[in-house]
Every structure is written in C-alpha cells, then in structure tokens.
C-alpha cells in the first residue's frame, strides 16, 4: 500500500488518475480506517488530501458558505454563521459518531462513503447543497443527491474527488431540521433519518419545501410528494399527519440487524413529522 499526501488538487488528481488497483481518499479516515482494519478493504493507494490548501476552509460565497472537504464535524459545529444558517445540516453532521469521531469525520467523507444511513446526506439534500467535484476534466458542480448511487458506490469517475460542498444562502422565512432514530442515545448508525426544509411567505403559508429520508432505501430518498403536501399549507397538524403518511409510504427499507422493515416504515413518518415541526418553528424565527 502506498501513502501519498500531495499539496495541490492537480497533483492529487494526477496520482489518482495514474493509480492502478484500489485507491482511496483520506480526509477524516473514520470510515476508511475501519474498512481497512476489518480487512473489508485493502487499498493499493491512499491519497491524503489534508495537505492541499483550502481543504480546511469555510469561506462565504454568494451569501452561502463553501465547506472544504477536510473540515471536521467539530470545526463545522464551531462556526457560528454556518450553524445559524443551516442548523439542520450542522445537527446532522454532529450526529455522526462520538466526540472523538467528530474531531476527524468530515461531511464530504460522510457523503462519499455512500452509506444509505449517512446522517448528513438527507440534511444536505434538503438544504440544496452542491458538491464541487474535481478531476482530470474541469471541475463540475453536482447536487449532493447525485453523488451516492448505491450502498458504497458513488457517481465519481476515476481520478475525481469532492473538494468542497457549497451550502446556498437560505431564503427568508425558511427553516430546516434533521432527525434520526438510533437504539441508544449515541454511537449508533441511523436506523431511520429524516430531513425537512421549508420556506414560508409573509402570511405563514409554505411556498417551498424539500423532504429526504435516510436508511430506508439503498440511498437517501428525496420525497417530492411529501414536499408537495407541505407547499400551500400552513403546515398544520393535518398536513403533518399527511406528511408522515406519505413518508412512511415512500420508505423502502429492509430488515437487518439494526431494525425491522415495519419499524423503519412507521418511524420514517414519525421523524419526518417531528422534523417538519422543528423546521416550521425555525422558519417562523
């Protein structure tokens, strides 16, 4: 196994493109090292991107913020502006693992590990986040929902990696939230996750919404029907119950060691409803 720590994106793309066998990007390493340890994965090349300038930066851009690929959950959580604009995204990222994991784990890593249960992904989707993908060709911007295509699989091509994630400026009177269910209070992988974002007009009617579910399908599920159910309403109790129903119906989970199908279907609705209620509160300010 080879370990490389290039100091430019160009150099990183270079080694990745030339590499034979399996190569992996190392940012926080909280998934990578576990996979290596278990023997699940024996990469021939590891490219540590933390020496590349900008990877640790959180920079404002067109009213939004660009988060570098190596920014840890802890650092993100300590950024007052980001926390104020996207509390749901920050909370979702902060749910990933323990304090120790937070010291290393990155949002980009959580996205590119392509786990169906990744906590930050539903929240990033509902926040309308866009990934900056760099590679042999010129950099492209990809909506986060298009990165993961199946468990452990991404749409990234050989030589490509995600250099940063852009969180667009939230609209006025908008709010978002992410909730997940785990058996314990900490340290577990999400059994179900639900992210909701919504925007209200001056009259308190919902004009725009996004709903995404985690851990109930091979990848995060964007539930447009649920969003549609919110739009045009004041997000009253009846609407929330309808939202729950739609989300439960949209969930396509499996039985596994972490939860049953029936449980995930029911709880997907419950969490979506609860997340929407929090988002509503936040939108009202």
């Amino acid at each position, binding site marked *: 196994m080879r370990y490389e720590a290039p100091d430019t994106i160009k150099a990183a793309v270079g080694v990745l493109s030339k590499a034979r066998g399996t190569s992996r990007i190392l940012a926080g390493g909280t998934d990578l090292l576990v996979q290596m340890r*278990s023997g699940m994965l024996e990469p021939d090349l590891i490219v540590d991107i933390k020496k590349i300038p900008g990877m640790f930066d959180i920079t404002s851009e067109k009213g939004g913020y660009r988060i570098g690929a190596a920014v840890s959950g802890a650092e993100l959580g300590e950024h007052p502006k980001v926390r104020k604009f996207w509390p749901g995204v920050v909370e979702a990222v902060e749910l990933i693992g323990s304090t120790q994991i937070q010291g290393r784990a990155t949002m980009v890593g959580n996205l590119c590990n392509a786990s169906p249960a990744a906590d930050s992904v539903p929240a990033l989707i509902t926040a309308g986040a866009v990934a900056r993908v760099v590679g042999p060709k010129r950099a492209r911007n990809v909506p986060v929902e298009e990165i993961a295509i199946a468990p452990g699989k991404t749409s990234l091509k050989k030589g490509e990696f995600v250099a940063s994630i852009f969180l667009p400026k939230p609209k006025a009177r908008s709010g978002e939230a992410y909730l997940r*269910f785990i*058996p*314990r*209070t*900490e*340290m*577990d*992988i999400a*059994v179900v996750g639900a992210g909701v974002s919504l925007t209200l007009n001056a009259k308190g009617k919902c004009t725009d919404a996004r709903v995404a579910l985690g851990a109930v399908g091979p990848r995060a599920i964007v539930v447009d029907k649920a969003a549609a159910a919110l739009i045009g309403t004041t997000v009253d109790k009846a609407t929330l119950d309808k939202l729950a129903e739609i989300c439960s119906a949209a969930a396509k989970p499996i039985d596994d*060691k*972490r*939860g*049953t199908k*029936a*449980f995930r279907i*029911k*709880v997907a609705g*419950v*969490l979506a409803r609860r997340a929407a209620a929090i988002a509503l509160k936040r939108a009202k300010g």
Partner: protein
Amino acid sequence: MPLDTKPNVIPTTFKTVGTRPVRPDGVDKVTGRARFGADMQAPGMLVGRVLRSPHAHARIVKIDTSKAEALPGVKAVITSKDMPAQEGCDMDVLTNVMARDKALYDGHAVAAVAAVDAAVARKALKLIKVDYKVLPHVTDVDEAMKPDAPILHAHIEHEYQQDLLETAGHVKGKKERTLPKGKRPSNIAGRYEFGHGDIKKGFAEADVIVEHEFTTEATHQGYIEPHACLASVSSDGWAEMWVCTQGHFMVRDVCAKLLGLDVSRLRVTASEIGGGFGGKTTVFIEPVALALSRKAGKPVKIVMSREEVFRATGPTSSASMKVKIGAKRDGTFTAADAILKFQGGAFPGSPVEMGAMCAFACYDLRNVRIIGYDVVTNRPKQAAYRAPGAPMAAFAVEACVGELSEKLKMDAIDIRLKNAAKEGTVSSYGPTFGPVGLVETLQAAKAHKNYKVKLGPNQGRGVASGFWFNFGGQTCTTLNLNSDGTLGLAVGTPDIGGSRASMCLMAAEELGIAYDDVRTIVADTGSLGYNDISEGSRVTFSSGLATINAARDCKKKLCQRAAMIWGIPEEAVEWKDGHARPAGANAGNFEPLSIKELAAKASGTGGPIAGHFEVNADGAGPSFATHVVDVEVDPETGAMKVLRYLVVQDAGKAIHPDYVEGQFQGGAVQGIGWVLNEEYIYGADGRLQNPGFLDYRIPVCSDVPMIDTVIVEVPNPGHPYGVRGVGETSIVPPLAAVANAVSAAMGVRATTLPMSPPKVLAALENKMRKAAD
C-alpha cells in the same frame, strides 16, 4: 473454615474498614503506567494470530499450511496436530481452543501462526488453505432441542420421551408425539430438576395463576480489554506467561495439562486486568500462544481483536423459559414451576443448573419445581458471566411476580415481602438459609425517595429482587513485615475491581496500623500456593478472610517477639492498636512495642516476621438485592429512557464502600444493556452479524442516569468481619426490573429480551390493534 470450631465474633466497630481511601494501584491507572495484558514486551517477541472458521458447522477435511510456513518472517504455524490430547486433559477445552475434526461455530480457531510482525502474520493466515465440508447448523435453543435438529456431538445422547410429555409444547413446533424409545444422539446435554413439595396441590390452592413463556438472547461480558497474553517457552522446557485473566493459577494448571507440561515448569503472572465479569475464567489463546512459542522457540504475544472477542470467547447463554406461579388472594405464593432451556454454545456446560437454583431463591415456597435443560448449539462455548444463569431466570420469575402484584392489586414490594426468603427458609434449591438480607433490602427500597416519585404519562416503575450464592474456594496469602514496619501483602486473586484496596484495609484493621503502611500485590504462581479464580464474588470474602487470618498469625509472632524481649511468657502479651502490650498489670510493666520497633528488632529476635494463611474458604453468605427503576417509553418510536435507578443490596459488611457501590452500579448498568439493546445476532448462515461495539450495543454514558445505591449490612457469620460477596447479585434484578417498568409504561408484558425499540413498538401497535377490535 473446615475443622475450625472457634466461634466467629464479628466486631461491631471498625477503625479502618468502612473508610474510602484511594486504591494502591490508582496512580498507575490514571497515568497510563499500569501494565495490562497487551502492554508487555519481550526481547525477540513474535506476533501470534489465529485463523478462525467462517462456518457455523463444518467438517475440517484438510489444512494445508505449507504456503504459510514458506512465507519469510513466519516462525511457526500450528493446528490441532500440534496440540495432541494429553492424559486427563479436558477435551472440550482443548477442542474449543483449537478445532479438531470439526469447526463447531463461526470464529472457532482452526490454526495459528507466529511471525515477526502483524503484517506478515496477517498475510500468513491468508496463505493457510482449509478445506471445509459445510454441515447443517443450529444456533437457536428451541430448534436445537428438536429431535431432528443437526447434531453437534454424536456422543451426547438423550431420552426424549419423558421430556416431551413433561415440557409439552416447550420444544416449539413439537407437541407430544411418538418418538423412537430409548437414548438417541441429541443436543440436549443434560436435564436437571430442583424443588420440593407438590406443585399440583399448590396450584390447586391458588386463587390466581400467572404463566408466561420468555426468551433472552446471548449477551457478552463486554470487558473493554480484549484477551491478551505473552508466552515464552524455552528450549529446556521452562515456560513463562504474562496474561490478563481472572485466575492465573487456573491458567497455569489448565495450560500445563493441555500441553503436557509439569505445573512447576510454567510460571504465570497476572497482568492488570481490563474487566472480566466471568469471561476471563477460562483459557482461549493462552495454550495456543504456548504451543506457538514452543514450536518457534521465541516469545509469542497474542492479542485478540474486538471481533475475535465477540466471535470466539465466551458469551453467556441464550434462554427459552416458561414460568408459572400461583398465589392466594392475600398474595401468598402457593406454588411455582419453571422450565429453563439454556444453550451454552458448542459444548455442554450452560449455567442452567445455577439458573434453576437461583430462579425462585428469593421466595419462601412450599411447592416448587424447576427443570433445566443444558443444550449445545453452533455458537461459541459460553463462559461465566456475572451470576451465571441467574439474570435470565430472575427475569422470567420476577416478571410473573410483577404481574401477580398487578392482578392482586398489591404493592410490588409488599407482595415480595409477603413471600420473601429469610433465615430458616428452605430454599427452592434445597438448603435452609442462614441469616440473609432480602427483607432488609425490600424495606430499604420501599423507604427510599425514588419509590415515592410520582410518574408521568408513558412512564412506568419496575421492581425486582435477585439472589446469588457467593463462593469461597482455595485461597493462600502471605503478609511480610518489612524492616521499617510497613507490610507487603501477597494475594493470589487478580484484582478485578479494587480488591487490593480492600485487602490493605482489612490487614490494617487487624494490625491496628495505617492503611498506607500495607501494600497489596497480586503474586505470580511461583510465589504463593494455589488460589482459585477471582470468580463467584469470592475475592473480598476469601482473600479477605485469608488476609485477616494471616494478619492474626503475624500478630501472634509479633507478640512472641515482644515476650522474648521482655522475658515474659507469650500469653502475657497482647496486641492492641498496633502495639504489643503486657496483658494486664501482673504481666509486668513494660513500654508497649510498636510494630515499627519490633520490625527493627526482627533480625535479633529470630529473623523475618511473616504471617501466612491457607484455606479452602467456606461460609460465603448469599447476597440478595432489590432494584427499583423508572422508565419512559416513546409510544411513537418505542424508544426507552431510564429516568432513575435504585440498587439496594446486602453487602454483609462494606469494606471499601466506594467499590461496593461501584459493583452495584456496574452490575445494574450491564443489566440495563442486557434488557434494552445487547444481543448476539446470527444470520441464516449461522454467522455472527454484530461482532463489534458498533452493533453490539452496550450502554453508553448518555444512556443512563446516576445509579442510586443503598448498602444494607446483614453480617455474614462465615466471615471474620461479616463480609458477603457483592459483585454478581447486582446484575440479577435489572433485567426484570426494567422489563417490569417498560411493561408498566406501555401496558403490555414484555417477554422477549432485548426489548429493542422495534419489539416495543410492535407490542404497542399490537395492543392498539387489539383495543380497536
């Protein structure tokens, strides 16, 4: 103590005992200096690794190690061929540490390598080619009992007829039906029965009868330190081992037997031990490390990975149980019946007998019967886990007691008080109890503020009591007086929870000196006589008893020296407050001699002064406990929150109250994990699906509240200071206490553990559906 007829006078006041000083090994443990199993190095040390079966049940057709042996850096490769059966060795243990003709569970060791480093060792394992013939497997206890289940051991036979009648419907899916008569190969390794009276008659007298079937999953002790050992066998056959174990004398004797060594040629030193809870009372990698070292001619260190710990050490049994209790309107129990079926993994020896003996031990029953089945399955051989067998049995029994209190509209503590075992009660397992403290724990629990807190919506309160025997066993200690009057105490029982502090306290108390003047060490197998394992909550009792008597022996010698110095008869000298004093006026008028002065004069008065005591300690008094817990259930998700938790337990005498409370709290939280989230999950392929702390979910800090404790002290007449073991009883009530609380909160009886949220939510929806139609 055998042959000791002196009446035991238990002091009522203590100077040192009962205080809470800092433990002697404390500073090393907060600074990272303490050396645990994996922390030891040896010159030229090799890394040992074990190859494990990926199959739950498979015949081992052939093992080709040639490629691994040829790999540069590999110094030894072994299989069962290198560990031939020795005269009189325990074949089950030998077969468990290295599979012979069959792999009996996922994770069963089939070969091992020693190499210059971990990378080479890992590579070598990949080069070993094992040719398996996969066989049908069974991991569920009820499935394994079926007459047509896949058979693990041809030599285990059982006569089915009678059981199927007796436990009709217990062998699920197999109602009474005709079977070939006589013994036939089976996974039922034993059938045990305890009890007395006439249960038919008893149930006939009952006004209310409660009956339920229960299941519990296997759980792991979950000690944070994986098994580790460093073995070094030299060419002349002398061997040394450094190992984290609850019993280094056991490790020495068992390994010597398995490998055909003279016991005297193997010296074992116990490292600091990072948790055991029963899981380190047997051997796994130790004989393998010795065999590798013998073959390689170099020291070999084996450290298990966490995955190996889960797949290949000894979790406890899973259980399938049926309990029936009858009571009169006034709450008096008229009869109790239980059938317990425990699978103990791939070899006989599940703790079902102890579970059967503990099941109804809390109650004074005229008519009681307990039947236990020991069943083998394709799972790792179970090892002891804190009060082995008792928690599951208590879960089933206390759940029924809880339901009786509801049906009879009686307070949960009152109904237990009404039937509580006390001095003179004929226990459900036979013997008559001496002085015991169950009633006292129930009264203290009822008086505690937690029992009076008003509960909110979706909240429930659970109560449960529990029992554990506590053991004594072989113990040998030496107390050496140093030239400056300080003392070195050598015990042979590994310190798994602060026992060195308790030993110092007892020695200091007996000699009337300061706690800091005594230093306790856990001596290696070459320095002391045989000591049984640190198990059965026996250490503070047994090593404490031996320590106190060694101190008395020491005092006697000190008095002799003083008598010599004063030129008066030995009987005329008494020991008080750390000084030898003339006993009364007519003994003569001499300045008392302090222990320091006598130590300084030792060489001139006959040489070193040391106290010794050797015993097979008896008279360990049982410890009873009562737990009260409040939980809240989220009716929409089945999530459960423990709001407050109370442990009340009889310690006989708390030597170091901090560590007594620590045992109470630790046991309670292990129990909370067992009832809420911990379980061995097997796939259809018979492989363990959750061999790690991510999905084997032990409680984390944010899962639990503070654990309130009340120490009850009903002295144990079998110990000089009245000590009872406390380590194990604390894990007996929690399963039932939490289950009763959750049942109360959601209004449905929880009968399967763990009560993970999916199960709780399913139960709630079931209830609503029922209410709907």
